[in-house]
C-alpha cells in the first residue's frame, strides 16, 4: 500500500498546502463587514471545467496507483508473508507495445500542436493536430488490441497466471479511459469540422483533451515501465 499512501499523501499534501495558501488561519469574525475580493471565485464555466478535469485526474490517479500497489503486493513476496507466490511468471511483453507507445506519444504531440495552434489562432492547423491526436489514439488502441491477440496466441491466458491477468487488466482499464477521452474528442472534432472558427466551448474541449491525453500518456508510461521492469 506504500505507493497508494504516497500518492494519496501527495494529493493530500497539495491540497493542504493550497488551503494554507488560502489563509486558513484568517479569523473570519474579525473580517466582518469587509469584502475580500481576492478569495472569491465566481469563475464557473471554463475554469470550473478545468478544475473539474484536474479533480477527475486525481481520482484516476488514486485508481491507477491502487492497481499498481495491488500489482506489487501480489508480485512481491515480501509484502505478504507466507503466501505461496511461486506462481508469478512474467509476461513476455509483445514488441508491438513499443510501437503503441510511440503512437500514444504522437497522439499527445498532435493534441499539443492543436492547442498551440488554437492559441495562435491558426484554426486549420489546430484541426489537423486535433485529428492527428485522435487518430493516433485510435491506432494506439488498435495496437493494444493486437498485443492482446498476440499474447492470447502465445498462450498467456488471464486465468493462467497473475502476471497475465494484471497485464490484461491494466492495459484494458487504461484503454477504457482513453475510449472515454475519445468520446469527448469525437464531439469536439466534429464541431471543428463543421465550423470554420473555434468557439469557446471548442477551445475548452481541445485544451481539456490535451491535458487528458498527456495524463493518459503519463499513466501508460508508468504502466509500461512497470510491465517492462517486472
Amino acid at each position, binding site marked *: 500500500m506504500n505507493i497508494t499512501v504516497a500518492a494519496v499523501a501527495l494529493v493530500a499534501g497539495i491540497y493542504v498546502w493550497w488551503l494554507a495558501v488560502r489563509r486558513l488561519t484568517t*479569523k473570519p*469574525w474579525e473580517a466582518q463587514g469587509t469584502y475580500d475580493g481576492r478569495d472569491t471565485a465566481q469563475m464557473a464555466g471554463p475554469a470550473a471545467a478545468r478544475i473539474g478535469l484536474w479533480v477527475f485526474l486525481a481520482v484516476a490517479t488514486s485508481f491507477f496507483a491502487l492497481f499498481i500497489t495491488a500489482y506489487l503486493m501480489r508480485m512481491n513476496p515480501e509484502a*505478504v*508473508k*507466507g*503466501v*505461496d507466490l511461486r506462481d508469478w511468471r512474467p509476461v513476455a511483453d509483445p514488441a508491438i507495445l513499443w510501437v503503441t507507445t510511440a503512437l500514444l506519444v504522437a497522439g499527445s504531440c498532435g493534441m499539443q500542436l492543436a492547442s498551440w495552434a488554437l492559441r495562435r489562432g491558426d484554426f486549420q492547423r489546430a484541426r489537423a493536430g486535433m485529428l492527428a491526436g485522435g487518430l493516433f489514439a485510435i491506432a494506439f488502441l488498435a495496437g493494444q488490441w493486437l498485443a492482446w491477440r498476440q499474447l492470447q496466441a502465445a498462450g498467456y491466458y488471464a486465468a493462467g497466471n497473475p502476471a497475465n491477468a494484471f497485464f490484461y487488466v491494466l492495459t484494458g482499464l487504461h484503454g477504457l479511459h482513453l475510449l472515454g477521452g475519445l468520446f469527448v474528442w469525437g464531439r469536439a472534432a466534429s464541431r471543428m469540422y463543421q465550423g470554420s472558427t473555434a468557439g469557446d466551448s471548442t477551445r475548452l474541449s481541445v485544451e481539456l483533451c490535451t491535458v487528458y491525453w498527456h495524463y493518459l500518456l503519463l499513466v501508460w508510461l508508468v504502466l509500461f515501465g512497470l510491465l517492462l521492469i517486472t
Partner: protein
Amino acid sequence: MQPEYKKLEWWLIGLTTVGVAAMLAPGLVVWAKFVTVPDDAAVVEAVGQQWSWSFRLPGEDGVLGAIDATLIGADNPFGMDANDPRGQDDVLVFGPELHLPLDKPVKVLLRSKDVLHNFTVPQFRVKMDTVPGMVTFMWLTPTRTGEFEILCEELCGMGHFAMRSRVVVDDADTYQAWLANQRTYAQLTARPAADLVAGATAYSVCSACHGINAEGNQALNAPKLAGLPKWYLTRQVHNFQDGMRGGAPGNDIAIQMSAIVEPLDETTIDNVVAYIATLPDKAAHSTIRGDAAAGASSYITCAYCHGAAGQGSWSTNAPPLAGMSDWYLARQLQQFREGHRGRHPQDLHGAQMARLSRVVPEGKQTDDLLAYINTLR
C-alpha cells in the same frame, strides 16, 4: 463571547493527547509481548475448513512436516507431503478436541483449507484469522485446566455459527495420556488394505437386518447402508462403540445397534466398510409423502453441507442423503432435534447437525423436505 479561546483549546488538546498516550503506551507494551513468541513455546497447528477444525502436532521431532494445499483431498485431508520425513511423526487430530498442557507456552500456527476463519477461544483473550495460502500464528500460556470452546469468528459461510470445537487444558500426566492415544501420519497411512473376503464374512451379521445388499429394512428399523462412503460408516461404527450414539437411554434402536458393533475391532470395521462399498447402490423406496416443491426451499440449508444433489461431502463430514432410506432420515432428524443424537460431548459433528436440525421444524415441513430429497435420487 469570544469566538475562540486559544488557551483553553490548547489545554484541551494537550490533556487529550496525554490521556491518549497514557492509554496507548501500555497497549503497545502488551502488544510487543503478543508479537514476541517465547523460544520455548511448543508448536500446535489448527486447521480451519468449512465448518470444522482439525489439529496437527509436530510429533517427537518437534517439527511440522511440509504441506501443500493442492494435495488436500478425501484421502489426505491435511494435504501432507508424503515425501517429507519430518511429517511422518506428525500427530493428526481430526477432532473433536485439542489438548494443551497446563502452564506451557504454546504457539498456535493457523491455516485454512478453504476460506477465512478465525481461531477463537474466548477465555484465551487472543484470536487470529486463518488465511488460506498463508500460515498465521498466535501464542498463549494456558493457566488453568478445563474445557474451553473454540469458535470461528470470521464469517465463513452458511455454517459459520455451527463451527465449534473444543480445547482441553490438562495437567502434564493427563496430557501425556491423551497424546499417547493419538495417531501419527505414518500410523494412519500404514493401515493394511482391506480384505473384502473377510469383510463379506463379517457382513453376514449385519445382513440379517440391513439386508444382503445393505438395502435396508424398515420393518427392522435398519437403514440402507449401500452408497454411504467409508469415512462415514467407519465414524458411525466408532460412534456406536464409544457411546456417542446409543450410549444414553431414550433410543432403544441405537442402544441395540451399539451392542451389536461393540466387539468389532479396527481391522474388521475396515473390512466390512470396504465390503459395503462394493454393494450396488440402488435408491431406497420412498415412504414419505409431501410437497417436494415446498421442501426445495427448506433443502437450501441442507445443500451447503450435503450438496445440491444430496451427494454428501467428505470435507463437510456430511453423508449422502439422495437415495437413502427416507424414514430413517426422518427419524434421525427427530433424534437430533430432541437431543438423543448429537448431545454427547465427544460428538462434535453430531452437535453441528443438532444445531442445524432445528432450522427445519417438524411436521409438514420435514415431510416436504424429505419428499424433496426423494426427488434427488
